[in-house]
């Protein structure tokens, strides 16, 4: 639980980055178009760059670093580590958290449904192939 003194219209991203010094969510576009700022709000993937902090109220916000650590990564992070599914890594909040939120809600999703869920997520280094494999690997663990 963090208390911050900011304008209620402040986008959540700036609170997380500037006030709380979290590193996971990144400023990509400020328009909700790329996904780099994604966090989970009560388990739903939201774009923190276009979410006013006033909308958060008492919701639980989970960032990429809150999901797991290097020593103990979350299974989806482990899948990304196994597949070496990144280059610069700037987009990872969008890729990992969007996929996790979708698969947690739709554990039996098909590949096409996963693709549809990722239609608004960008990676400009184009590590797409490995990222999709990592997501499939995580999806398999959800099937069991």
């Amino acid at each position, binding site marked *: 639980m963090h208390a911050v003194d900011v304008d209620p219209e402040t986008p959540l991203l700036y609170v997380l980055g500037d006030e709380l010094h979290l590193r996971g969510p990144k400023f990509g576009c400020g*328009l909700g178009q790329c996904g780099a700022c994604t966090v989970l709000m009560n388990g739903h993937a939201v774009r923190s760059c276009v979410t006013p902090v006033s909308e958060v109220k008492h919701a639980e916000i989970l960032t990429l670093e809150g999901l797991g650590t290097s020593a103990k990564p979350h299974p989806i992070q482990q899948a990304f580590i196994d597949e070496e599914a990144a280059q610069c890594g700037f987009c990872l909040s969008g890729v990992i958290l969007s996929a996790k939120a979708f698969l947690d809600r739709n554990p039996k999703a098909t590949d096409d449904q996963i693709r549809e869920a990722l239609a608004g997520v960008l990676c*400009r280094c184009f590590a797409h192939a490995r990222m999709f494999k990592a997501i499939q690997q995580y999806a398999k663990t959800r099937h069991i």
Partner: protein
Amino acid sequence: MTTGLSRREFLTGSGALVVSFSMVPLLEPLASGQGQFDTHMSHIDPTRLDSWIAVASDGMVTAYTGKCDFGQGMYTAQTQLIAEELCVSIDRVRLIQCDTSVTPDQGTTSGSQSTPTNFNSSDLAQAAATAREALIKMAAPNLGVPANLLTASNGFISVKGGRRVSYGELIAGKKFNLALDLKAKRRPPSEWTVLGKPVPSLDIGALMTGQSEFVHNVHVPGMLHGRVVRPPAVGATVVNVDEGSVRGIPGLVKVVVRQNFIGVVAEKQTQAITAAAQLKVVWTTGIGLPAQKDFYDYIRKQPSRDVLMVDSRDVEQQLAQAATVLKATYCHPYQAHGSIGASCAVADVRADKATVWSSTQSVYPTRAGVATLVGLPVDDVRVIFVRGSGCYGLNGADAVSFDAALLSHAVQRPVRVQLSRADEMAWGENYGAACVIDQRAGVDATGTIVAWECEPWSASFGGRPGYDHPGNVITGALAGYPPQTVAPQAASQPTGELRNGNNAVPSYVGGCVGGKCGGTGSVRSERVLTHTVNSPFFTGPLRSPLRLQNTFAHECFMDELSAHAKADPVAYRLRHLREPRIVDVVKAAAQAAKWEARPSPKSDLRRGQIANGRGIACVAYEGDNGYVALIVEVDVDVESGRVQAKRFVVAQDCGPISNPAGLRNQIEGGVLQGMSRALSEEVTWNDRRITSTNWSSYHSLPLGIEVPAIDCVLINRSDVEASGAGETAITVVAAALGNAIFDATGARLRQVPFTGARVKAALESRS
């Protein structure tokens, strides 16, 4: 955070200090792990071993490199190199990248040059080899055995099967005080145990769990937030700034105006955003822009700087005698780096010194630019590289570093500047150049090429700032420093060896003049005349600069010549290539793809909705800096014009491979980035300004696409020098896709990107 040591402390300090340096854990943010500003080390001498390597009394190795990692894997590969040459495990090496106070000036990390520079017989590799041999020499008296009977292994120098002494005991934290030994022997690839092995990115755990520090995460005590106000139109200049329009905005610290550079500084980021949006500025209307639809004709009509890259002086004669002369023109648009993160930098400029945290690929040149902009001697400016979002040449990192410096200079406090997406895409970065390329070739009665002429026009303005041209990126230009422009000049006849390695020259030529020959191909009659004209927009080196545009034209035209000859495109290429390394990648790709030898297009063009086909393209990067062949299989939806790549097969030879895991990642990323650029990316503008300012107007293929299979064939050669590998595969993607579309449908795409509408138009114009 002051856990690290400055270079000065290191250079004058004891071993104990170096130990404390080495105790900074890997995950410690590099920026804050490198100590406070207190040093003037612009004179770090690259000929001295101590400029590159330090060994602490506990044996930990610290290496200093001027080549940085922005996603391409240089951090891990260079760490492997040091571990290999010094015979220690990877976790005994700490690599310090690109900090003007502690690392040697290696210019810019670019152009697929980091591997050739640091992995062959100079610089970092040679430093590590020198250090190993120096330790062995030190051990000889210690162990009472001649140096030639000693070996280095796992941090110890040993007598075969017997006594040993650790590096830490030998060096005891002292300096080597030696020159780089250009004769020090590199460890041969056949004995490599760390280099050449597939090592995952060393920070992968931190990266995947959001713990890695990016420049966007740098926080300096007392830091303010800045935003810039860019002109509303290309060439617009400031008439008036109404500072009263932002008076009363909470937290606003200052409005900064310097000629046409405008920025605001505030306590909080949202306050800076509000102030930047509300600030009333009167601008001139700008220069007006040429219509985009006529732009390729426009380029041809501009005054140009012409260079005759190669001229065997017999092309007209050969073309006159040829059985057939074929011509085609290819067009490539401006494309954006479009880094996923809009660029960010932090600067702390004071009266007597400045520090900039930047994701620039060029810390020393950026230092020079900052020094010019804020009026300090270069030695009083420190630029520290901190990773940014992936960069493929010259994104907004240099411009935003200058922005931060100017704003911090104005308030004499640390300022963080975050560009907006539109700042980045319309005004932050230097685009890959638009090109129009004319091809003309003569073939004999058997279809063999007898002469090849290529005439490309490309648009250029600004570029890398280097040490002397801060105006080559937008910020410097707005602040009053002129960008480099094209001075029109007629071509003169080339003298000496033909420049067949130039990116405008096809791989299939190998002309001779006065007995001097070059090139990777067999076509003896060649002429390449390049024209560079002034661009209305800033341009720069986008992976792979001009090589990609020209290769699109060369490799598609080669396919057109092959189709004219009714020859198989692979066999036809092999018929005109003579350099074994490019021949080998073509053969390896064809074999791995199970290439069916036949001419393109397919003889059985069916009337169904989905047409499938395959295409090939290859290149000798810069003539000799890496070789690649790419085969792609595509489905073309003839109703919508939509192109779906199904499978890529890449064969690449970059000499001895430093890290096959990193190489595969680079190849895969390059291929898919190339696909996005070939199928959908194009910078757009209206009569006044850029209109592709975000991801709804600049089209990048998202994660949700059907990702084609990518098979990599890595040709590992230990008998040649190491080449670059980051820009090779992307260079051939547009051409391979265009050739595959032709194979599937008989429609030839000569303009990138191959949008559905453009493919449909090409399908409809088939005879």
